[in-house]
C-alpha cells in the first residue's frame, strides 16, 4: 500500500494505491490520522483509484476514519474505485454513508 496526499483548505486528499487488507490496515489508520492532525483538516477525500484489492479489514480502516471525521463535524468522500473494489464498497454499505464521486474536484465541491 502506498499513500500520497495533498491538502486543500480544510480537506485532506488521500490517494491510496495497492492492497488494503489486514497487513496494512493499522498503517493506513495511523498515517491518515497523523496527516489529519498535522494539517488540521476536518474532511477527507479518499481517492481509491489505485486500489487493487480491498477486504473487510481495509473497509474497517475506512469506516474508522469516517467515524472519526464525522464525530468532529467533518465529511468523508470516496473518489473513483476500480470495478472490483467498488463492488465490495457497495456490498459493505459504506457508500450509503460516505459519498462516491467521479473526481477529486467533484468530491471537494461537496465538502
Amino acid at each position: 500500500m502506498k499513500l500520497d496526499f495533498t491538502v486543500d483548505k480544510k480537506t485532506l486528499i488521500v490517494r491510496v494505491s495497492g492492497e488494503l487488507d489486514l497487513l496494512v490496515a493499522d498503517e493506513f489508520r495511523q498515517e491518515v490520522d497523523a496527516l489529519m492532525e498535522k494539517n488540521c483538516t476536518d474532511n477527507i477525500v479518499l481517492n481509491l483509484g489505485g486500489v487493487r484489492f480491498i477486504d473487510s479489514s481495509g473497509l474497517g480502516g475506512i469506516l474508522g476514519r469516517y467515524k472519526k471525521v464525522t464525530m468532529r463535524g467533518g465529511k468523508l468522500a470516496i473518489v473513483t474505485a476500480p470495478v472490483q473494489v467498488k463492488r465490495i464498497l457497495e456490498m459493505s454499505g459504506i457508500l450509503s454513508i460516505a459519498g462516491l464521486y467521479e473526481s477529486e474536484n467533484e468530491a471537494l465541491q461537496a465538502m
Partner: protein
Amino acid sequence: MKITNQIKLSIISLPENLPLARVTVAAFAAQLDFTLDEIEDIRVAVSEAVSNSLIHGYENDPNRIVNIVCTIYGDVLEITIEDEGKGIVDIFKAMQPAYSTDPERMGLGFTFMQSFMDKVEVQSAVDEGTKVTMRKEPQKAVTALAEEN
C-alpha cells in the same frame, strides 16, 4: 467425489502471508473456468477466512500455523482454512452481518465469505480451533449443465 487436483499451504500466522495466501489460491482456482470477477470473489473470501484465523483464532500471536487446503473435484473448488486457535463460542452470532468485537472492524468477514462463495461451512470448538470450508463452482459450468438438461 474424485479429487482432480489439490494443494496444501501452511503459513505462519503473520499478516505478511495474507497476500501470498490470496495469490496462491487464486492461481490454483484459475485451473477451473472462473471469470475474473469470480476469482476476485475467491480472493476476498480467502482473505477474510485467513484474517479471522489471525485476529480471532490466534489473537495476533505470530507464531502459530494456518493450514490452507485447496481441492478441485470435477468443476468444484473447495477451500479449507483451518487454525488451532481459541475457537468460536457462538458460531451463529459470529456469522451475523455487522457483528464485530472491535470498533475499527466492520464485522463483514463471514458475510463476504457467504456472499462470494456458493457454500460456507464453519466447524469450531472452543480452545481447539476453527475450520472454514468454502466451495465455489464456475457459473459458466453451472449454466452449461442447466442448458444440457
